[in-house]
């Protein structure tokens, strides 16, 4: 509860603070302060300290899993603001509003990780989505940014419509919005048709939000068109939050769906991995490659939906963190580059050794090499499915695509280290930025060696 209320209040306060605070460079510090406050309050809530006592009528339920995810999302956002805050300033005119929108998204994330009613799920997704539409179009003078925002908005509202329809059908089937209500209408059928159709609609809408195939078509254009700073945010923290919601929903509902559910999800995973990985190979721009790679990574995260056991729940937390940290790091570097094609990175190791070395760590983490956090992310996802023993074929397909992903991630490493060139930065980087990158890379390696430091938190 702390997260939801404080982020909303802080967002509103910050919006008005732009009247009195005129210095543009101050906003990112205010935002960072707000996030630290949020983080502290959220951790406090994990330990049982609640600032607000609101009767949610069981529409929201705050469990350790959700709160832990909140902590991770807030911490990742904090890192994101610290690394890329300066680039947010560079985007548009009313800088303060952009930071405020990020706080509203955090509010939505707080709801996504704790909803217990379909109504709240809907609210959470919308509170996340609407600020994102604005952020996508925040570079107002840029045609591509406008196009991306419009595309995203139209497609996004369409998917929201489908989701509402699904929720309505579920309401019809169960007679309420609560997640744990059994489907009682239509008497003793083996499968409740109305419930299944409703869930199928919701599945479509959510697959759209996490850019899972075959509902991924908006992703490359939107991610490419949006200002890179916000692509970084959308593709990582937000996506992970929607996955958490996805998992919470289907954890409750999947048992009603029977065997067919596994087949549908397996097909979606294979399609997502295929499209994400294979298309990423052919990209010339690193930014677009990352857009496709985020589709591919979503395919891996969907393993958690497929297996739905303890391992996959731990895994999705680790995956969110590992993937978010690595991608935020790569984007932070990408934004500084003059030329975002693969050639633009040629020779970066010589001109900017720190940027190149940390970027290599982030990329290795995305590949899933041991000693990085990304390894454990993939490890848990694979383990959760291997544990089921019935779907080894899916795991084998996934690792083959993981090997394909080496191809495009390593192209960046090859460009940085082994190719001749004069990789140039668009803007000078400050020592603080370098230091931040080093800390981030170090964090990824520490989690890579000792993942239990993190997971122990989940259980105490």
């Amino acid at each position: 509860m702390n997260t939801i209320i404080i982020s909303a209040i802080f967002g509103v306060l910050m919006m008005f603070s732009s009247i009195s605070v005129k210095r543009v460079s101050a906003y990112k510090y205010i935002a960072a302060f707000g996030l630290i406050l949020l983080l502290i309050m959220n951790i406090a809530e994990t330990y049982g300290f609640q600032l607000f006592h609101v009767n949610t009528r069981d529409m929201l339920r705050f469990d350790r899993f959700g709160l832990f995810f909140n902590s991770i999302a807030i911490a990742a956002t904090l890192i994101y603001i610290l690394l890329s805050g300066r680039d947010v300033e560079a985007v548009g005119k009313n800088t303060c509003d952009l930071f405020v929108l990020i706080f509203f998204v955090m509010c939505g994330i707080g709801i996504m990780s704790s909803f217990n009613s379909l109504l709240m799920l809907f609210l959470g997704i919308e509170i996340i989505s609407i600020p994102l539409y604005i952020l996508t179009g925040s570079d107002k003078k840029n045609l591509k940014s406008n196009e991306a925002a419009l595309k995203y908005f139209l497609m996004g509202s369409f998917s929201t419509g489908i989701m509402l329809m699904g929720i309505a059908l579920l309401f019809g089937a169960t007679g309420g919005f609560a997640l744990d209500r059994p489907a009682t209408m239509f008497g003793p059928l083996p499968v409740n048709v109305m419930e299944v159709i409703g869930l199928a609609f919701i599945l479509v809408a959510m697959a759209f939000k996490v850019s899972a195939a075959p509902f991924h078509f908006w992703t490359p254009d939107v991610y490419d068109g949006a200002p890179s700073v916000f692509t970084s945010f959308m593709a990582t923290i937000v996506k992970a939050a929607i996955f958490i919601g996805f998992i919470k929903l289907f954890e409750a509902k999947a048992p009603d769906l029977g065997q067919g559910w596994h087949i549908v999800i397996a097909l979606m995973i294979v399609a997502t991995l295929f499209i994400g990985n294979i298309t990423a190979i052919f990209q010339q721009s690193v930014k677009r490659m990352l857009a496709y790679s985020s589709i591919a990574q979503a395919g891996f995260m969907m393993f958690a939906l497929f297996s739905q056991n303890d391992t996959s729940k731990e895994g999705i937390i680790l995956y969110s963190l590992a993937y978010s940290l690595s991608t935020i790091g790569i984007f932070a570097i990408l934004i500084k580059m003059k030329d975002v094609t693969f050639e633009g990175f040629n020779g970066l190791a010589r001109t900017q050794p720190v940027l190149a070395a940390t970027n290599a760590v982030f990329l290795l983490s995305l590949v899933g090499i041991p000693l990085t956090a990304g390894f454990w992310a993939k490890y848990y996802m694979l383990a959760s499915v291997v544990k089921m023993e019935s779907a080894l074929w899916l795991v084998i397909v996934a690792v083959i695509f993981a090997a394909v992903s080496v191809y495009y991630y390593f192209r960046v490493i090859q460009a940085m280290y082994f190719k001749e060139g004069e990789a140039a930065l668009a803007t000078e980087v400050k020592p603080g930025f370098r230091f931040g990158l080093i800390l981030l890379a170090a964090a990824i390696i520490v989690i890579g060696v000792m993942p239990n430091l993190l997971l122990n938190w989940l259980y105490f």
Partner: protein
Amino acid sequence: MIPVLLILIPLISGLISFFIKDVKAAKGWALLSSLVTFAISVAGIWIYNQPANLHYDAAWLPALGSRFTIGLDGMGQILCLLNAVAMPIIFVSTYRNMYQNPGAFYALMLLTQAGMMGVFLAYDCLLFYFFWELALIPAYFLCSQWGGEKRIAVTFKFFIYTFVGSLLMLIGILYLYYKTPDESFALKAFYNVVLTGNEQSFMFWLFFIAFAIKMPIFPFHTWQPDTYEQAPTAATMVLSGVMVKMGIFAVLRWLVPVFPAATEQFSQLIIILSIIGMLYASLIAIRQDDIKRLIAYSSIAHIGLMSAAIFAQEKTGLQGVMIQMFNHGINVIGLWIVADAIESKLGTRKFSQLGGLAQKAPVLAILFVVMALANVALPLTNAFVGEFLMFNGLFRYNIWMSAVAGISIILAAVYSLNMIQKIFFGETNALTEQATEARSNVQWMLAILAVVIIVLGVYPQPMLRLTEDTVNTILAAVK
């Protein structure tokens, strides 16, 4: 404590080496570190060889049932010794080679060494997997950064091949993990895991493909000649001298004892593949015009014999494999040193451009002949002992297979002697006219290797004694 030091010293000194800018300091530091590692591994075999010193166990990931368990058994001692002995020899013999950014080069060499040590020491399967991958990453950077013209594409192929293999192995590891009674990655738990016949066959292949790519055996070998050719020679020595042994080692430790029934079931197929690989690689080796490629193919042939001998599952054969892992490492490094000396002096590796070097560099010629004869496994050289034992094991398994495999010895003589003749004898030409004797550091290292070759060829007993325990453990698990 010994196994911990064997990993930590190269690891830490490697990380420090990244920050050394001076060429001489980087070389000296790497040499110092490798000598310390060598001293420790020797101490681990002959001085502090009480079990308490050779095993170390600490909590790592309690939630996953994985512990940081490392230890040395006979096979581990031999391979750690090989790994430890290879590095100083490589560093000294390539001392004159100049690398751009030397600190990073030596750092990556030492990190590779640390990773391989971990592979040879791990008694926990997850830890083993960790090190297995970790040895690959620095090797990838080494070969792509400092190698020949086509290095990027070639090394990338190597990386992707091995990465696919290791991911498949990861699935196998996870599957076995969930099959162990108390969900643990410990070696003992893996040895005791109960699987149905189908599961065994399936898991066997998931593991075996990873190891077969690393060794490499036919038909997974296609990355190897290109990589050896394009990699900087120092890295090639590490790859062919030590890293390919990871594959053989892993088969002995993590495959055969874990899946005895599947090993029995597929051994004939794998032996046949290995023998095809031996003959095929030997025939190709005969046709090569490049020293590096010839050695690369000859290496495939030798590894094929080791793989065949493992799957014959006879005691003498297994002992032969273990000491041959060491011997092959020594011999092949010797050959690479000569190849590097010739290339750095004359700028070519083509037989067609060489000839008559024996007149100009008699010492190098003598030492090279020793290496080449060891490559043929002539009696009195170390390789004879190993190959004899391996053929013995194979013979007991199946006479005909042994006979066909034996052809490879003849072929080895053909290409090795051919190589000696084309490089060192015959008429000198305009290029080789200017040749001089190799530098003293190269000569000294080759001389040391030659001594090792002959000593182990005459008196292999200490090595054989080391392997005895491990062989019995493996055979006990199989039976």
